[in-house]
């Protein structure tokens, strides 16, 4: 509680944990979309921000560059990742394949406890949609996908899925003016859940593929539209 406040006295943080804290912190900052794509990040600023040595931050940046969160080029320094429309389409297509495979495995291997949790999450999403709680729905949506991934009990697939960086892609290309949740989104999640609960791997795979493909198509349509006709300055009269 209040670990940056005036009164923090928790002991026991070692420097190994400090590096992973800096990694987690910078990664979450990048995933939140708060730093525009292509922004330069200097080591000095990041060491000040995350309270680590320069060598530690350098190691963090190397790891993030390897994973694709940032790019590192000789004359351009370290910059936040910017995806072209083609790269974005490629990543989202890969997501479709991996996530539908995970859903199929979840139908086979989800425990009763995991199914109960999925049911709770879905109920929360329904509740949020009724109330018009967009942010609550999004949070539930993320949790749903996370729970399906874990219920698959397939480490290799899950790890591959986690390397995809598709959240970064979504952030860069999200359409802020579209109705949210996307029409049909809740029903698609219900279909996925139903297939898992009835232990039908083929149906789960198909339902997830349909769901992710719809999201991908909506996003790509918007991205192509914007490329053809870039949005104006929102603050202009």
């Amino acid at each position, binding site marked *: *509680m*209040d*670990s*940056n*406040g*005036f*009164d*923090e*006295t*928790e*002991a*026991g*943080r*070692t420097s190994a944990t400090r590096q992973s*804290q800096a990694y*987690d*912190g*910078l990664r*979450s*900052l990048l995933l*939140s*979309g*708060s*730093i525009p794509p292509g*922004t330069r*990040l*200097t080591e000095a*600023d990041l060491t*000040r*921000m*995350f*309270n680590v040595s320069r060598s530690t931050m350098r190691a963090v940046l190397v790891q993030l560059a390897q994973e694709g969160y940032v790019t590192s080029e000789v004359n351009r320094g370290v910059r936040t990742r910017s995806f072209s429309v083609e790269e974005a389409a490629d990543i989202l297509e890969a997501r479709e394949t991996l996530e539908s495979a995970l859903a199929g495995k979840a139908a086979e291997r989800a425990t009763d406890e995991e199914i109960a949790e999925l049911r709770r999450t879905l109920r929360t999403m329904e*509740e949020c949609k009724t*109330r*018009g*709680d*967009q*942010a609550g729905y*999004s*949070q539930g949506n*993320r949790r749903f996908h996370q729970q399906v991934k874990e219920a698959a009990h397939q480490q290799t697939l899950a790890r591959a899925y986690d390397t995809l960086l598709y959240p970064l892609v979504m952030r860069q290309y999200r359409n802020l003016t579209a109705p949210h949740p996307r029409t049909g989104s809740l029903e698609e999640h219900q279909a996925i859940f139903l297939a898992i609960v009835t232990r039908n791997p083929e149906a789960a795979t198909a339902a997830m593929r349909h769901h992710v493909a719809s999201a991908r198509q909506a996003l790509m349509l918007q991205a192509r539209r914007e490329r053809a006709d870039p949005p104006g300055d929102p603050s202009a009269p």
Partner: protein
Amino acid sequence: MRQPVKTEAGLVEGIPGWDRSVTVFRGIPYAAPPVGDLRWRPPRPPAPWAGVRKANAFGPVGPQAPGPELDGLDLPMSEDCLYLNVWTGATADDRRARPVLVWIHGGGFRVGTGAHPRYDGEALARKGIVVVTFNYRLGSLGFLATPELSAESEHRASGNYGLLDQVAALEWVRRNIAHFGGDPERVTIAGQSAGAGSANFLAMSPLAEGLFHRAVAQSHARHFRDPELRFLASSYRTLADAEAAGTRYAAERGARTLRRLRSLPWPRLVEGNASAVDSAADTGGPAKPPLFRPVVDGWVIPGGYEETYSRGRQNDVGYLAGNNLDESGAVPESTFAVYRTAGRRTWRPGAPPVHVTREAFVTASREKFGAMAEEFLRLYPADTDDDAGRAHCAAVRDNARISTWLWAKDWTARAGRPVYTYFWTYASPVMGQDPRRASHGSEIDFVFGNLHPDRGEWTDHDHAVAETMTGYWANFVATGDPNGPGLPRWPAWSADTPSVMELGNAFAPIPLADPPRLDFWQRFFLTQQAW
């Protein structure tokens, strides 16, 4: 709540809370985005909008080093962060406008957001309070001072932009809260840690006069001769010191001019908790405050505590203030071994020390108490390391209780309204600490009544404690008196009775400290410089 709701800048539409009797409005702008040329300027009114603004998503959080305060929130970070949130259960049948609670989040003036789930106002709204939470500028974006910035200001002052944001939020409340069923004549400001420090500063600010009627300071309301005040959230800087630090800060970023500083993207301006320590602050020990914190600038804060209180210049408001069992360097006994092994290497720079060896305790005592050290060590004896740990914690706790009691004495000398002080002792196992403790901020969940199942496996006892705490706070917000039917009696502060209300493990007054110890601390404070 009939929707949409009118505000000065336009119509807003909120969403039902989890309980349909409450409506929540998230992300209402209360000021123009302080970006571009507005960076490091007082906040301006928000631009009006046409149509109905859907207030269903929290606004971005202010730029800050990512950490536990933002965990799981998934909100974007942006300089465009001056948004507030309202929870109200008001209906057309209300016979009277509802009392208002404006919550100022903590986080060392460096991190945090009003959108954190622990500040969810729904439970208090169900108890008849209109709750407002909000973001204010943090870190250097909120509290940078430079000679150029001061010169630019018609008041020849800089460094209090975060506080000015808080004043702007209060002004928004004054002008708009009636539309949400709130009573602008019954406004309480409340905060924890830096939020409590903020409340203390607003209580001294002429700019906030009339904007609120009572204040709650959860931790850090301390007497102005208590040296711990200098590193706790009530600490302040002089304008000269702040401007000098600001000049150094700008130079470190290669920005010799204000124009250059204003052109830097915000990731270049965020300070982590190590680099933002004010090591030059004279606190009489290793504990130091964060660098970017409020400034006695002669305008927002006209003078220090002693200057203000002795002349009766503070705002005429009632107060509720207190401290926690395990904060400011006091820890549960079962952790002594951990602190012994960890040493100082891994702590937040400037953190209050935890002395758990005889040697450290005695050395620190001699440094702090000088000529009074022998008396101190007689009152807080330490023959073994464990004794030293216990003596250290006892001293920290006595210091806090006595300091707040003396602060209340000075406060009430000129303000005619009652003050209520407390000492929070409840250590719920659900807080996730091992071992559990009544740590800094541990009372917040209980004050707000936010014991949601997805935040922990709360017990019936936890819920009972929360019922009592929300009852006290709701009563105080409504009437200026925490007492009410069904709640254990909480006597107001009185000069005749050196006691404090325990909250948590029990709900009853307890003595402030052993009389010889009370006498010691009173005499010790008299030897210290007044802030």
